[in-house]
C-alpha cells in the first residue's frame, strides 16, 4: 500500500462515518448530563457540554457537536460554534473549577462559524477570551483532537495541560482548501497545501503542538467506533490521573510554560 498522504488523513478526519462527540459520549461515559446556554443570548448547538462520568472519574466534558446526518449537522452548524458556544464553554468550565473537577474537551470542527450574527456577537472576542480563560483555569484540562482541528475555532477549546490527538485527525491554522486558494490561487491544490502545512498527528507531535498520538483501529476510527473510543478513554484517564497529582498552582504555571514554549525558536 502506498504511504498515507496528508490529504488521505484529511479525508479520514472528515469521514462522516467517523465517531463524533455524541458517539464518544455514548461509548466513553457511564453518565452525561448536558447543561445548556451561555446565560447571555443563546444555547449554541455547535458546541455542547455537561458533567460526565468517565471510568469512574467525574469531569466536565465539552466538545464540538459535529453530526453524522444532515439533520444533525443542520442543527449544530456542522460543529461550527458561534460565540455563544465559546461563552457557554467558559461558563461550564468555571463551574468545573469551582467544584474541583477536571475538564475534558473534544475538538472536531471545520472552524468557528462564519456568520453575520456570529460577527455581531463577537466571534473574535469570544475566541480570544476563551484562549485567555483556559490558559489560567485552575483545574486540569485534557484536550482530545478527534477529527478536524479547524483553526481558531478549534484552538478556543484546545488550550490545556495535555493535548491528545487521534492518529487520523488533522489540526491546522487554515483548511488545506483555504490555504491552496490563497497561496496557490487554486483550491484544487489542497493536497499540496495539506502536505506543506504539516497537519497530521505525527507531524504535530514533532513540532511540539500536541503531546500524544492516540492510535486508531486498523483502517481508521470509522471502521470500529468501539475500539477507537476505548483507546481515547484509556488515554484520557491516564492523562487525568497524572494531572490530578499536581498541585493546582504548579499545574497552572506549568501550563503557562507549555503554551509559552510554542514555536519559541528564539534565544
Amino acid at each position, binding site marked *: 500500500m502506498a504511504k498515507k498522504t496528508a490529504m488521505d488523513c484529511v479525508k479520514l478526519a472528515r469521514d462522516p462515518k467517523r465517531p463524533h462527540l455524541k458517539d464518544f459520549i455514548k461509548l466513553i461515559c457511564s453518565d452525561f448530563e448536558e447543561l445548556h446556554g451561555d446565560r447571555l443570548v443563546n444555547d449554541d448547538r455547535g458546541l455542547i457540554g455537561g458533567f460526565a462520568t468517565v471510568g469512574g472519574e467525574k469531569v466536565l466534558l465539552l466538545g464540538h457537536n459535529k453530526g453524522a446526518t444532515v439533520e444533525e449537522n443542520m442543527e449544530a452548524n456542522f460543529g461550527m460554534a458561534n460565540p455563544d458556544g465559546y461563552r457557554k464553554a467558559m461558563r461550564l468550565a468555571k463551574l468545573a473549577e469551582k467544584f474541583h473537577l477536571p475538564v475534558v474537551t473534544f475538538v472536531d470542527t471545520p472552524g*468557528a*462559524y*462564519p*456568520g*453575520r450574527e*456570529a*460577527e*455581531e*456577537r*463577537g*466571534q*473574535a*472576542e469570544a*475566541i*480570544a*477570551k476563551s*484562549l*485567555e*480563560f483556559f*490558559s*489560567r483555569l485552575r483545574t486540569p484540562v485534557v484536550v482530545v483532537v478527534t477529527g478536524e482541528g479547524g*483553526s*481558531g475555532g478549534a*484552538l*478556543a477549546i484546545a*488550550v490545556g495541560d495535555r493535548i491528545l490527538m487521534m492518529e487520523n485527525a488533522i*489540526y*491546522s*491554522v*487554515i483548511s488545506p482548501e483555504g*490555504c491552496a486558494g*490563497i*497561496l*496557490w*490561487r*487554486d483550491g484544487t*491544490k489542497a493536497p*499540496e*497545501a495539506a502536505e*506543506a*502545512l*504539516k*497537519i497530521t498527528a505525527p507531524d*504535530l507531535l514533532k*513540532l*511540539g*503542538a500536541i503531546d500524544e498520538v492516540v492510535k486508531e483501529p486498523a483502517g481508521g476510527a470509522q471502521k470500529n467506533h468501539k475500539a477507537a473510543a476505548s483507546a481515547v478513554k484509556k488515554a484520557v484517564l491516564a492523562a487525568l490521573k497524572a494531572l490530578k497529582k499536581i498541585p493546582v498552582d504548579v499545574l497552572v504555571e506549568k501550563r*503557562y510554560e507549555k*503554551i*509559552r514554549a*510554542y*514555536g*519559541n*525558536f*528564539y534565544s
Partner: protein
Amino acid sequence: MSWFEAKTEKVKIPPAKALWAICPKCGSHFEKAVWKKNNAICPKCNYHGRLSARERIAQVADAGTFSEVFRAVSYSDHLAFHDATGPYKAKVEATIAKSGETESVVMGTAKIDGHPVMLGVMDFAFMGGSLGTGTGERVARACEQAIAENRPLVLFSASGGARMHEGILSLMQMAKTSAAIAKLKEAGLPYISVLTDPTTGGVSASYAMLGDINVTEPKALIGFAGRRVIENTIHQKLPDDFQSAEYLEKHGFIDKIVERSELKGFLAKMLNYWGF
C-alpha cells in the same frame, strides 16, 4: 463589425496608483501629497488609512523616547514552507530587505506624554501583518518585560491573521499571546489595544480583542471571518458597514473610536486615570 467602430490610438497612461492615492473606502482620488499631508486620512470620508509601524511610533511616542527591543526575534521557517509562488524564506527575506523590519510587530519601550509604556505596533506591510512565531514571541516577551518593569502595554494591531507559512505554530501564537496578556492583567497592569485597519482573523481572535479597553480609528475594518467567506456561507449580502469600527462599537466590542489626531492624548488620559 459595427459601423461606428471607433478608432483610438493607444496612449500609455501610467497606472493610477502611481499618481493618485485612492481611498479604499469611498474610492475618491487625491494627489499623493494631499493624502500624505492629511496623515493618510481620507479628506472626503474620514477613513483612517494605514500607517507604517515607524510612522505610528513617531506619532504616538514622545520624541526620542522609543527604544526598540527584540529585533533579533524574527521569523522561523521550521516547515521549509514552499507554495506556488516560491519558498516562504525568499518571500519573507525580501520583505525584510524592503521594509527594514524583521517581524510584523515592532516592540519597544517608550513614553506617551511622559507615561512610560511598553509600545508595540504591527505593520500591515510586513507579510500582511500576519502573526508568525516571531510576532507571537515578541508580544509574549513584551508582556513579560512590562510585568518586570511595571509598565502598561499599548499595542496597535494591523493584521490579516495567523501566518499560514508557519503552520500550526502560528496558530499556537494565538494561545501564547493570550496567555501572556492574561498574566499581564493578573499583575494589575493596564493593556490598551488599538485595533487599526485592518485587524482580522487570528489577531482579532487573540490579543487584539483582549484589551482592558479596545479602541480603534474611524472606518477601520475589524472582524474574525472574511466578508466573502461569510457571504458564501449564509448566501446573503452583508451591509456595507459590516465589520467597520462603527459597526463594532454599535455591537459593543469597541470602547471608543478615536480620531488619529486625538489618539495620543486619549492614551495618556486613560493611563492618567489609572494612575500609570
